[in-house]
């Protein structure tokens, strides 16, 4: 009885959580009139025409173009974030060095730093360097372990590996970096998956940084293209097209999450945040 009540409660919450997304998908097939007159998500008819239109967007480029732009930011960012975070976390987890505590405090500071508070001076810095409207301001920070949280997660994982592994590798003649990449990194794969997935999702979601750093429509990532489409369509316009573009816009995140789900959640929960 009690269990049934809990299930009922959880199901109710699940419906609230997922219905808006279901509605979004359904509404992308609806006419304007249908959108604003029916609460049920199922559309009267399913035409694929709207998705063809949505793919073409209201801008001079297709969704495909914006996807490629987005991936041109995401792929280097993932590579940079993984490599730099691993090196830095290894340094913190396994070595002792001058001013270690100071740098550790700085790491936490950086993690808590709101990006809105730093984006204006950084805009000025990148514009002095003539790099506004390139992907450099979006990708290069990842090269310097820009996400403190990743370093944090990795440190926890490294601490979980017995130090004897390192010693054995050292006796067998491995240097510092060889030990890291051939002995330790294979042990922390779930954490690396978490970093890849997080970087993917956060870059897909990031709106503020591209809004400020990217100016020409040709270079827009997906988020800015969506904004542009909303801004340039007025009332009375076919709303379904915007909604269909939004559906296309969330498909990558949902798929990546679906594929990596298990490892990803174990990475967050086993990692730094639970300790």
């Amino acid at each position: 009885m009690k269990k049934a009540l809990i299930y009922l409660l959880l199901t109710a919450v699940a419906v609230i959580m997922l219905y808006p997304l279901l509605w979004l998908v359904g509404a992308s097939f609806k006419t304007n009139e249908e959108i604003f007159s029916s609460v049920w998500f199922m559309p009267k008819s399913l035409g694929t025409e709207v998705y063809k239109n949505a793919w073409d967007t209201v801008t001079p480029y297709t969704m495909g173009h914006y996807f490629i732009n987005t991936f041109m930011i995401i792929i280097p960012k993932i590579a940079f974030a993984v490599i730099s975070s691993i090196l830095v976390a290894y340094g913190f987890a396994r070595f002792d060095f001058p001013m270690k505590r100071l740098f550790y405090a700085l790491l936490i500071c950086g993690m808590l730093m709101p990006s809105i508070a730093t984006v204006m001076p950084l805009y000025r810095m990148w514009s002095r360097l003539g790099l506004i409207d390139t992907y450099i301001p979006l990708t290069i920070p990842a090269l310097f372990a820009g996400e403190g949280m990743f370093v944090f997660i990795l440190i926890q994982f490294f601490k979980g590996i017995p130090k004897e592994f390192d010693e054995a590798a050292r006796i067998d003649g491995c240097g510092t970096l060889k030990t890291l990449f051939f002995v330790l990194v294979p042990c922390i794969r779930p954490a690396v998956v978490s970093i890849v997935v997080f970087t993917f999702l956060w870059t897909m979601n990031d709106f503020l940084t591209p809004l400020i750093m990217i100016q020409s429509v040709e270079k827009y990532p997906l988020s800015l293209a969506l904004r542009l489409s909303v801004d340039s369509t007025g009332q009375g316009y076919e709303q379904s097209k915007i909604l269909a573009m939004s559906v296309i816009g969330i498909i990558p995140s949902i798929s990546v999450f679906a594929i990596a789900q298990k490892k990803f959640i174990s990475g967050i929960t086993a990692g730094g945040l639970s300790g």
Partner: protein
Amino acid sequence: MKTRIYRNPVGVSKYTGLALISPFIIGAVLFIIYPFIASFITGFTSDGISVENFRNIISDGRIKASAAVTLKYTIILVPLKLAVSLGVAFLLNMELKGIGIYRTAFYIPSILGANLAVIIMWQYLFTSGGLVNQLLEKAGLFPVSWYGDPDAALFIIVLLRLWEFGSAMVIFLAALRDIPRELYDAAKVDGCGRLRCFFSVTIPQIKNIIFINLILQTIAAMQEFSAPYMITNGGPLGSTRTVGMLIYEEMFIYGDEGTANAVSWLLFVFIAAVIFLMYRLTGISGRKQK
């Protein structure tokens, strides 16, 4: 001066660690320390360094108003979100079957997070003839003019972020799993009811995690930008012009780089102060725990 002994494996210099973290050191200088100093210089010293200049900025009506909006938003959202995420995590931790599915369902809105597509969806849900108003009418209630009423407009954004409670929930869930069963058993032997157990065993055991979530959510709330930017554009009557919106508007709409930087710097310092204060008030520190 006392020389410090560095505990490193044989043959490893004390600089090896420094070399490994050097990307972070460069990054910290470029992306944390530099912006902090630069925003102070641009924000407060453009017409010479003076207390006057500083006072003018903090007494600006627009800045005050938007600070009030941000505070109100944070104070409404953060406790709600923590309560919901802890409550749901608690239910999920009851060792029922099929919990994984629920966990995934609750987590999906969070992974989409600030995705613009979701924000656009939210905007549609609250239009005058949108889904929410249709449901309200079906339930026999009055439809709300969500975009016309200042309080309702802020509430749209609160609801959006509340809907994304999953990330906090996942962290709580992991913490709840770590509580040893014996503690509950012992409490039961001592005659604790369910409610008493929750407040006397669960809460004290996870107070560090509550604190971490509190900080993470507070910081996220205080830098809210994309939702008010897309959904309400700061309106009506500035009721959703968060500090993030204000910084953006000053810089890119009014071209006032000085104010934008001054506000950035103040936000930075304010958040640091809030974290420090919470840290002190809750009396939680890693060292005391051990």
